[in-house]
């Protein structure tokens, strides 16, 4: 028995030592913990910046942390476990309400969609969703699309059997036929459409409601973190710009890198290249200067209705100064 105890203790110490020494050695770079979502839109400029050495040039080492959705990223930033995060449209209402600050514009997306299954009695008319089982991820852009689609035919969430789930569970449930419809986002939407073939169809997406909202995606930080790390934030944005510019010229290469990070196939990632209109840094600065970006955020803010204070100025939560300083 004593031998066994000794052996187990030795193994334990060795194991603990192995794990304890598992962290990277100090590279002399400033480490920034960045939250991303598992899609091309979230990762393309970031990974391009990392792989081309743009972040290292700026003295930054990026540590990627995967998240399922924007609200979770903001909550993680609140707790201090994440420094910088990427959010889609839905989580912007938290920024408007003062929970986080936007320091970089990412893109206007078209990755969210409400998908229905014909074999389950769902038709192109959103009214057919009445009484159906619909999966959705609360707080996300796709939920807004679902709500607006229902609103358009005089329905509310109470008129459907809504199941609050995560994107992965929604995908599994849809492909197994457990749900009649769902609100989800790219690349899960592609997976569902591929798996279900002609049975699945897009009932509504971001374009359907382009008159009501701009589905803007952004890079965010906490206000305190931004104040304490102004220089770092500017350098991070510069590297991000380089990533954006590389992506514009090298879509295939970027898709390959993103696929490697996500551990998925190149084709799946490459298929998502149409999820948004991708800007270069020059185009972005032009659109900031001519007020296009601010107006996009303004439209987006109005789309949240009573969930936010519509009087909140965009400049209160969007740091245009960082975007402009990084461009110099």
């Amino acid at each position: 028995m004593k031998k066994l105890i000794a052996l187990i203790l030795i193994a334990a110490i060795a194991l603990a030592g192995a794990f304890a020494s598992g962290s990277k050695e100090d590279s002399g770079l400033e480490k920034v913990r960045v939250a991303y979502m598992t899609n091309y839109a979230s990762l393309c400029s970031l990974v391009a910046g990392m792989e081309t050495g743009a972040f290292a040039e700026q003295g930054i080492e990026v540590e990627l942390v995967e998240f399922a959705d924007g609200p979770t990223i903001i909550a993680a930033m609140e707790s201090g476990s994440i420094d910088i995060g990427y959010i889609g449209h839905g989580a912007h209402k938290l920024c408007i309400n003062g929970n986080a600050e936007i320091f970089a514009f990412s893109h206007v997306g078209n990755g969210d969609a409400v998908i229905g299954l014909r074999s389950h009695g769902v038709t192109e008319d959103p009214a057919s969703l009445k009484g159906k089982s619909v999966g959705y991820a609360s707080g996300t852009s796709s939920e807004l699309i679902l709500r607006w689609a229902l609103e358009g035919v005089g329905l509310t969430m109470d008129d459907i059997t809504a199941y609050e789930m995560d994107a992965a569970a929604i995908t599994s449930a849809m492909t197994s036929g457990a749900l009649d419809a769902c609100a989800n986002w790219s690349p899960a939407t592609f997976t569902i459409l591929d798996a279900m073939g002609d049975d699945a169809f897009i009932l509504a997406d971001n374009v359907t409601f382009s008159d009501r909202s701009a589905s803007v995606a952004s890079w965010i930080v906490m206000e305190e973190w931004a104040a304490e790390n102004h220089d770092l934030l500017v350098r991070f944005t510069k590297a991000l710009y380089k990533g954006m510019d590389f992506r514009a010229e090298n879509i295939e290469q970027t898709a390959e890198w993103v696929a490697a990070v996500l551990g998925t196939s190149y084709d799946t990632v490459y298929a998502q290249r149409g999820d948004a209109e991708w800007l270069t840094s020059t185009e972005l600065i032009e659109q900031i200067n001519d007020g296009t970006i601010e107006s996009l955020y303004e439209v987006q803010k109005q789309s949240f209705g009573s969930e936010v204070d519509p009087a909140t100025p965009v400049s209160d939560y969007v740091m245009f100064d960082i975007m402009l300083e990084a461009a110099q």
Partner: protein
Amino acid sequence: MLLALVSLMLLTSIVLLAIRRDRRCLLIALTCASLALFIFSILTYIAKKGGIGREISAILYGTRSVRDWFQYLIMTFEELGALTAAGRYSFPLLLLVTALDMAYFDFALRIKKHIWMLFILPLLVSVCYIPAVFKGLIDGREMLLRLLVILSSCYVYSYLAAALAMAAAEYRSITLPFFRRRFIPRSMILLSLAMVYALYAAQDPAQIYMFYRSDYMFLLGLWYLTPGLSQPMYAIVLVGSIVFSVLGFVYLLRYMSINFDSRKEEITLKRNASTASRGISMFIHGTKNELLSMDILLRRIARRYPDDADIAKLMEINSSLGERLQSLHRSSKSDCSLLTLTALDPVIEKAIRQVRSRYPEAGFEIIRKDAGIAILADGSILSEAIGNLLMNAYEAQRENGQDVPVRLEYGLERLWVSIRISDRGKGIDPRHLRQIYQPFYSSKNSSQNWGMGMYFSKNAIKGHLGSIRYERNEWGGSCFIILLPKLGSPYTGGEA
């Protein structure tokens, strides 16, 4: 690693339950199951929500494919939250009940009588954390939400602390090293379970289904996705848990195999005893006739030499031999003993007198740890059994040239009355340990020892619903521990 650890704990506890099928193993298995439910639910939630780096992901799940499997489980957040709450609120209760089940000190025994009261708070909290009930209760009532979160945490921490305190108090109350050695692995299992549970114990499970409600989201912090510990600390806690649980379960399994071996030994002993039984009866019968004949002859000689003291002494020895043969006959012929309420002190004194009738110079260091101990016993048989052991101890010391008193300690120990007899002899060769209780076995090179003493003592103690075990003591000599059921203890025939 966390997933593997919890799965291993659950599996081992199920194996243990399947083999032993007793209440204690059932409680350990239920405690492991509630921990598994808690951890698996949280791992599912984390897999679905993300928020952990690759290193932590490896620590929690092992491989990416395992994490993906959890991520794609079809579950709503309400279901996941309900399962997490069930695990969070059943574990502290089960841990405390298991710790109580292992405890035998007075306060623990008093609590056991009102154990149902321990279920009230967990039940109340569990009902409140049913998602529909929780949402209904806290709707627009922030104070109530805070109160619920604090109350549930108080329950968790107080029960955890009580369970660990119970185990510590029990450890302190045990004085026999043999019992301590058996208690440590069980408490290690409890400790390892508590360590794993503590990784996420502070988190409120309502976060899973209340996440997107802004009034909740920024009220109570984050959460399952934020590793409370750094990566090295995570590893140390998990490795610590692995060590404790492996040691605990290995020791319990080893103990089970010892029990199995001793049961096999018991069967062998029974078979040998049965074979010897006829011989013993013939032996006793023949010897008894010889003794009666000798008694007649001695009476005649005594009449012829009425003042001869040696003849009187011889008659006394003859009569004592007859009585002892009678005792041996009784104990070897019958499995039943007539047990009456008997004070232990006179039994011990009689056993010592028995030794001194043969070795008047024999010295004994008697340590009485508890006064006024009463047991159910056949006084004469028990004193004979104890006397045999004392006699052996004295002879072993004498043979080893040790002129010190034989130590005899007795007192209350958990469910038992323990009697320890320690000598400073050479101890028993481990190769002979299995044989010492066999009839007609003697390791002594003496024509005066027939090898019936230990056989008789074991049988006699067994007839008192007790047990006897051998250990080496700190002087390298022998220590025999007799355990007899404590009067009034809830004796179930199992081990304490």
